């Protein structure tokens, strides 16, 4: 595609930032009331960074993360992901980015309830049109990597929270994305299984992925490379970094 070639050619001219947000706003309208959850946020993430987003409840962390993950679009402002101007993409292009460039891990796991661990990990591979043999290889490799080689055939109801989150991480890694986004991935887990999940993210970071994680847990934030603070929909400049 000539468009992509053009963007590729421009690459050196742009920054080293894999994620670049400028003056991003997001307003939610409920009935007649409009609420601005993000009020002009600038945010940048470098390739290979391990970044924690923190802030009080309701400060707009999830809103921002959803925009980063192309699950939602900003009301205004620019968002450039891997040198692609996301504002200008159509819904199919956004779907393809979610499929290949980004792995998203949710606090509520968001697994298909009727499908096994194996089948849940398979979903993004199906949409990426990976053939059956490769799918099988990759799923088995991913599930053993997250330590679930023996839970392949379990459904979400037959797994613990930590195990479900591991399936979700395996699914996020399915198409080998460069960026892993996690919105309070340990929020629903006890300390021990939460620790295991954090450990996994560290390993992924070490293998070269860009990790952005929302957390309330200062211990987790401290283990990251950089902390980004949000407050009332704005960047909290009051001492970024811990």
């Amino acid at each position, binding site marked *: 595609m000539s468009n992509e070639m053009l963007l590729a050619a421009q690459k050196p001219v742009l920054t080293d930032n894999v994620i670049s947000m400028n003056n991003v706003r997001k307003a939610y309208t409920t009935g007649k009331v409009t609420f601005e959850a993000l009020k002009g946020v600038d945010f940048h993430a470098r390739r290979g960074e391990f970044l924690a987003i923190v802030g009080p409840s309701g400060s707009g962390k999830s809103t921002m993360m959803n925009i980063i993950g192309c*699950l939602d679009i900003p009301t205004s402002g620019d968002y450039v992901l891997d040198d692609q101007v996301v504002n200008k993409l159509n819904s*199919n292009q956004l*779907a393809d980015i979610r*499929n290949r460039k980004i792995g998203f891990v949710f606090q509520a796991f968001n697994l298909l309830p009727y*499908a096994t661990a194996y*089948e849940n990990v398979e979903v993004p591979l*199906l949409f990426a049109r990976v053939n059956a043999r490769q799918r099988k290889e990759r799923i088995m490799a991913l599930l053993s990597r997250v330590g679930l080689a023996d839970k392949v055939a379990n459904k979400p109801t037959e797994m613990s929270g930590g195990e479900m989150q591991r399936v979700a991480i395996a*699914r996020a890694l399915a198409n080998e994305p460069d960026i892993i986004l996690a919105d309070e991935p340990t929020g629903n887990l006890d300390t021990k299984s939460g620790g295991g999940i954090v450990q996994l993210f560290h390993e992924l970071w070490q293998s070269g992925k860009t990790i952005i994680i929302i957390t309330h847990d200062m211990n987790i934030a401290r283990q990251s490379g950089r902390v980004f603070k949000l407050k009332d929909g704005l960047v909290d400049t009051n001492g970024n970094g811990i």
Partner: protein
Amino acid sequence: MQWSTIYNVFVRDFRKQKKRITLTIIALCWGTISIMLLLGFGEGLHRQLSVNGKGMGEGISVLWPGQTSLPWKGLGKGRPIRFVPEDVDYLKNKIPELKEVGGEYHRWGVSIKYGDKVVSEHINGLSPNYQDMRNHIPAAGGRMINDLDMQYKRRVVFLGNKLAERLFSDTPADNDNWFQESPLSKEVAQKAVGKEILINGMPFTVVGVQIHKMQMNSYSGMDADKASIPATTFEAVFGDPWLDNIIYMPNDVRRMKEVERKVFEVLGQKYKFDPKDQRALGIWDVAANQKEMDNMLFGIKLFLGIIGGLTLLIAAVGVANIMYVSIKERTREIGIKMAVGARRGYILTQFLLEAILITFAGGFLGMFISIALTEGFKRVNIQSEVLAFMGRPTISIEIGLVVVAILGVMGIMAGLFPAMKAASVSPVESLRYE
């Protein structure tokens, strides 16, 4: 769009959600069956009732002689009226609105003999036009009395099917059951034609046997039990000067009342009675009865149609509801799939395929079962008057297809619209759906 992707996801999810899909198919199937059986039995009943009501003939009136009850032109009341054979042509000539007129003699308790079998039955003298007016229809291989028989006063006889069975079969079926066609009837009809029987000791040749017909009303007994000979022969053989009945059929059944008035005028003039004297002639307007019957049948049909429509509506709402509920439940599923990279088109195609497959599987399964049930019901050969009244359930494939199409479209729309909505918003919104 990548069809193999859609196919893979579709097949996988379809297998995974067997319970929900099976339930939907059963609901659809059930809706289709109840409507089709309702309409099928209704149609069968309708046909049967309209056949039953017409066995004695359609659009005719029956006359029999009475007694004057009003004085007329100096003549007193209480005078008996009598029909002569000439009245038939007289009426036909005087009243051009009449299509057919026929005169009829009766004699009861006449001995009829074939071989060593003797029965005592009802003999009828009548004319060939009874085939049209009174449904004296011959079974294959035989014929009704014809004009030459009349002209030459031939000794030929047309037998009622029950009577023929009693004479020509060693194992006649139950004589009281007029409603069920005897399994022997065809065989007996073949056997009887051309045979000679004795009526009051006089030889007559059987020219035909009546087909089985449903006769619900009569003025002189069931046609199945009678032997009919030409009216001219009857007059000659039994020396009977008076006709017992005259029946007529107008060109236009809607002018029955007008024709009736003319009949009273014409005969009143001939026999000198007041045309307004209702007792001078007995009259039975069979067509009026049939009109009532037709109205009732139309009522039944309308009633069944309304019930069928309501049932269809309920079924459609039920199907729409199941599809709608299941897809509401699946909004999260749509959100999850979109979040991991499903394009909008994949989601919509998958849901559309699924809805089509489910609705048509359920619809055609229902149609198939309904047809199998009614066919099975037809095969059960219960000798029962109740069944004879109820008739054969008749499923119309056209109605079935319309039912399936309506339910299908409802199901597809109910399935597709929520999916379209879920796929058109951002994945976050679908994921947040509880």
